[in-house]
């Protein structure tokens, strides 16, 4: 019976898609958006889709944004689906964020740090008042001011603390990291897998979880040691060459959260770090990721895990918006037979309850 109901929708679906195409385009009297316009003028939407779609390609992400009518989760879904059609040539060498061509770099822990505080193109310090000048089509703004660029090194803030022995060092290892696109997650997941999951996780979900750790669900005392955004070069070792070659540059945002750590039986009191790294310019996401990364380290640091943001399974199984969308939205699919049986059951229970009440 169920199949009878599911069939017969073909014409309706076709017509629905035709209408979708029409509303996607909108009023034909309004000029159509080009991919270059989306890439250039909706660049942070493109960045978010690349991060959560887990595929760095500005042109593909812009196409996904256009096709999804600006629905960024749908766009990330499209990008994830597309990436499954491509072969993987290999893995890059780990990118060196210390050698980043920095466009923005700030620290909330040191005012006068080597390399200085570089604000870059930021929304910070804007008044968040709608700018009606943008509503009118005008001349492009004048080029941004320039100043002599000194060749100053920008050492990592975590490195400054490490020199004093106050920052827990990272494990020095070149071990092959786990890859959750090849092996399903298993728990406990090591930090490489957790960072991979967080890097492609939903910004909103991670933001809320990070926020929860600040409000007391997980007892975090974070400082922004450093945020940096800019271009890093990507190197890869082709098997036919056997030595690394540069294949291009990508934009990334990195956040180092510095957290107090009271020490344990084996470790002296010191600072520990939460780490965030995302494709594109995604500062909110990088910060949220760093907060949640630190929370998820509770087990290895011997802290009591009591809050949602400290529960690996809870965080990692629910941070992926493509998976979450799939399971939530599957509820729209026909459940006619399931529901028929529920209906029978409730009617039966109801009849029994009424009969008993009457007796």
């Amino acid at each position: 019976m169920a199949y009878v109901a599911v069939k017969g929708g073909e014409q309706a679906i076709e017509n629905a898609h035709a209408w979708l195409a029409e509303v996607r385009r909108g009023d034909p009297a309004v000029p159509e958006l080009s991919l270059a316009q989306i890439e250039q003028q909706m660049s942070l939407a493109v960045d978010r889709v690349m991060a959560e779609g887990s595929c760095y390609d500005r042109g593909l992400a812009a196409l996904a944004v256009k096709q999804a009518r600006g629905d960024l989760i749908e766009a990330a879904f499209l990008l994830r689906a597309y990436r499954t059609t491509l072969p993987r040539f290999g893995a890059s060498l780990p990118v060196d964020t210390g050698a980043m061509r920095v466009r923005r770099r700030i620290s909330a822990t040191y005012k006068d740090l080597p390399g200085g505080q570089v604000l870059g193109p930021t929304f910070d310090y804007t008044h968040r008042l709608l700018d009606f000048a943008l509503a009118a089509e005008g001349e492009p703004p004048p080029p941004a001011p320039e100043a002599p660029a000194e060749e100053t090194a920008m050492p990592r803030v975590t490195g400054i603390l490490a020199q004093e022995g106050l920052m827990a060092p990272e494990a020095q290892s070149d071990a092959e990291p786990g890859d959750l696109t090849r092996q399903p997650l298993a728990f406990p997941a090591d930090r490489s897998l957790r960072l991979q999951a967080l890097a492609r996780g939903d910004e909103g979900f991670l933001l809320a979880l990070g926020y929860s750790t600040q409000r007391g669900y997980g007892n975090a005392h974070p400082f922004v040691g450093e945020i940096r955004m800019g271009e890093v070069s990507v190197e890869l070792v082709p098997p036919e060459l056997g030595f690394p070659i540069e294949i291009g540059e990508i934009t990334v945002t990195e956040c180092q959260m510095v957290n107090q750590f009271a020490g344990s039986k084996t470790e002296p009191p010191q600072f520990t770090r939460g780490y965030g790294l995302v494709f594109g310019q995604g500062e909110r996401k990088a910060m949220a990721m760093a907060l949640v990364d630190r929370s998820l380290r509770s087990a290895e640091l011997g802290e009591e895990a009591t809050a949602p943001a400290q529960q690996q399974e809870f965080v990692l199984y629910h941070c992926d918006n493509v998976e979450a969308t799939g399971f939530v939205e599957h509820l729209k699919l026909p459940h006619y037979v399931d529901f028929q049986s529920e209906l029978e059951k409730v009617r039966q229970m109801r009849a029994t309850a009424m009969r008993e009440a009457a007796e």
Partner: protein
Amino acid sequence: MGVLARASAAEIAERLGQAPPLPQHQRLRGPETGLAMVRGRQGGDGAPFNLGEMTVTRCSVRLADGLVGHAYVAGRDKQQAEWAAVLDAALQNPALRPALLEAVIEPLATAQAERAQRDARKAAATRVQFFTMATMR
């Protein structure tokens, strides 16, 4: 190779117009587009982790004189990858190398360095110059 990887096909084409003609080549593989898994390091300097993938196009060619060239370039531009592979092969030929470096690689490298410098100067203009209350008086 880094210079060619960062240049668009249009930019390479423009430079090739000023260069001696490239030797005939035969495609050995591709150009074909795939993915590379980009890795980062935990905490910036720790053990590697998989950050996410990026599109990459690769191409391998052989010139008439037997020299083989390989290219891997970010993105999906097959023309860029093929030219990069041909140039990789031709640059191994000592007779062609100086002219190609001068006409293609060096001008592209200069343009890229200029773009990077412009960004660096804009960034420098947003560097905070702290002053204390004492110096305000």
